[in-house]
């Protein structure tokens, strides 16, 4: 009964892939054992998708093709699903943010080789491109573009973060909201260590 997904012919990347949007029907076959939100750590969302998106609540959705059997529009956010009023969503989003760090969500940012750390308020940013641009300006370096397969290939720097579990993750893997709620600190890695991540 399962819809055939266009991705299945790939190297099963679909199984580990997480769109920045809301995936949907591939979920049932995926045995998620962890009760927490972070079951999709290794996914690769579309950062470029997010930077194209037009603004918080009114991303227009492509017409979801009527036939269930065809793949959904690639990695689009689905407007208005689940059906929760934006008022409620906003109230609860604020709550989730507050959980991390009280008022404002300041996290330390370190750069390999820099003499001292900085602190930034993650709540100020709405998306990865915004955050990365700020980091680039703050530290006068180039991080470059994220890609799901190759991370920040071609750059000497790789932005990483420590999440709630204490693991160091590549910035950009998980959806922005999930990143916001799990990021404890940032570290911009440099040099060979950084390049190693992008393989």
């Amino acid at each position: 009964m399962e819809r055939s997904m266009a991705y299945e012919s790939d190297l099963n990347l679909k199984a580990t892939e997480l769109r920045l949007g809301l995936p949907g029907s591939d979920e049932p076959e995926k045995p998620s054992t962890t009760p927490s939100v972070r079951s999709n750590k290794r996914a690769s969302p579309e950062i470029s998708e997010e930077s194209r998106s037009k603004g918080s609540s009114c991303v227009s959705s492509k017409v979801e093709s009527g036939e269930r059997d065809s793949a959904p529009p690639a990695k689009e956010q689905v407007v208005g699903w689940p059906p929760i009023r934006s008022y409620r969503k906003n109230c609860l989003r604020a709550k989730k943010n507050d959980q991390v760090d009280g008022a404002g969500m300041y996290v330390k940012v370190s750069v390999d080789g820099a003499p001292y750390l900085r602190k930034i308020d993650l709540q100020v940013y709405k998306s990865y491109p915004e955050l990365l641009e700020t980091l680039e300006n703050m530290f006068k370096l180039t991080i470059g573009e994220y890609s799901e397969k190759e991370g920040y290939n071609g750059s000497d720097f790789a932005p990483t973060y420590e999440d709630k579990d204490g693991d160091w993750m590549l910035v950009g893997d998980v959806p922005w909201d999930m990143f916001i709620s799990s990021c404890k600190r940032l570290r911009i890695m440099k040099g060979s260590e950084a390049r190693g991540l992008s393989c």
Partner: protein
Amino acid sequence: MILAQTRTYTTGSGPGPGPSSSSVLEYLAPCPDQVLENVLENVLWFLTSRKDRNAASLVCRSWYRVEALTRSDLFIGNCYAVSPKRATSRFTRIRSVTLKGRPRFADFNLMPPNWGAHLAPWVSAMALTYPWLEKVHLKRMSVTDDDLALLAESFSGFKELVLVCCDGFGTSGLAIVASRCRQLKVLDLIESEVSDDDVDWISYFPDTGTCLESLIFDCVECPIDFDALERLVANSPSLKKLRLNRHVSMGQLHRLMVQAPRLTHLGTGSFSPSEDVAQGEQGPDYVSAFAACKSIVCLSGFREIIPDYLPAINPVCANLTSLNFSYANVSAEHLKPIISNCHKLQIFWVLDSICDEGLQAVAATCKELRELRVFPFEAREDIEGPVSEVGLQAVSEGCRKLESILYFCQRMTNAAVVAMSKNCPDLVVFRLCIMGRHRPDHVTGEPMDEGFGAIVMNCKKLTRLAVSGLLTDRAFAYIGKYGKIVRTLSVAFAGDSDMGLKYVLEGCPRLQKLEIRDSPFGDAALLSGLHHYYNMRFLWMSACNLSNQGCQQIAQALPRLVVEVIKHEDNLDMDENVDTLYMYRSLEGPRDDVPRFVSIL
């Protein structure tokens, strides 16, 4: 009843004696028709049910006229179904108006803003014809500050304003209402969007005292002047319902509760201390404050709850009939000691943060529960989710009197839904939202057809249904076969073919409101409902398989139907595919306030 009077006969509309131009002092028994009409008028005053009144008005012209004269509550389920002029001409003695505007799916950003549902033409018409208007209830309407100003100026005896899911106005509009409506008893703002005009609207209520019985402003996001609020509460001896917004801290709440121990409905605001309370400092005695409020039956708020303070509400739990934790991120552990005292609870709204375990606790204690709503703390598809079929099953077994349920979850089984259909025969509203689209029964892998089928089959009182999960046409066949009194149906990402929609349109004679999104129903299915559309309030279909041609056919076949094709803002080319169809019966034809992204066929 007048038995003798000077009367001039005019041409009557019913059978009876013909016109006479002379004034006659009538000592004889008055003409039977006049007697009848007087009796009718006296009797019909007592008729309150809308349905009964509508039926009475159809008997004959005389009854129609008398019913129109005696109706005091006007209910308009779709503000575009009738014009303000027509409504105010027919009903001349209205005291209370209820108006509903946008369709429900607009709440989920499925409609571009500024679609319509403006209050302005209504308030203008009513200002002229209903000087004695007392109550206005609006749902999903666009209300401006000017509208509120006109309302406040035009109705000197105005008593009640209820705005549900409305927008377009701000604190300046509220200030006008507060200051000018001296008889105001009820000001309820529920899930409405209120813009912050930097006006301290609370202070505009008269200092000398108010008749306020209900003040609900928990959705107002702007900070308020607490001193003004405290004065207002002190000056409002009749105040029974008070729901504060999240800018009111616990300490402030305490002060208000001390002023108003006779409250029956309390929205607690943030339910956390303000910034300047040091850790470990002895705070006010919240428990005593709650203990003093012996009349509280309804509790809500808890917008920024610090769970440690939750036990303060214990004194009122035994009397609570309604509890709203749907903005409170509370765990099962926090909930259990509280809920175990809530034996009388009938309405419970909560976040899924309480998990299945929390729901089991509810099921164990709340035997009188009539309405349950479980909202998701994280409204997304790709997570495990803390509530499941386990919670639903528990609730079905513990809360046998359940009438209404709204349940958001990530996974579900047919078995649990079937169990609920059998354990809760009084269900009137069943809304299940499995947030992952097209998700089957996670144990059997089957579609959710059988579960929903059981609901329509076993719940003989069911009038409202929302379906989700993986559903084939079979589910709709069940609905068409058994859902004979279903009035409202919500469908999303479901069905296989046109047959699904056909089953419903052909099988559900009482269907009034049908909203469908992202389902494979096309023109043929749409056409199969021609016989029924005049009996419906509206049909919404977005991201389905409709074409302009199909919609045109409907529009041509049914001239009293307004067929709106709504395009998304960024896709205004007229191609064959219809993004969104919204159609409704109307006496007025196409409305004149159509925005550019809507075409009326």
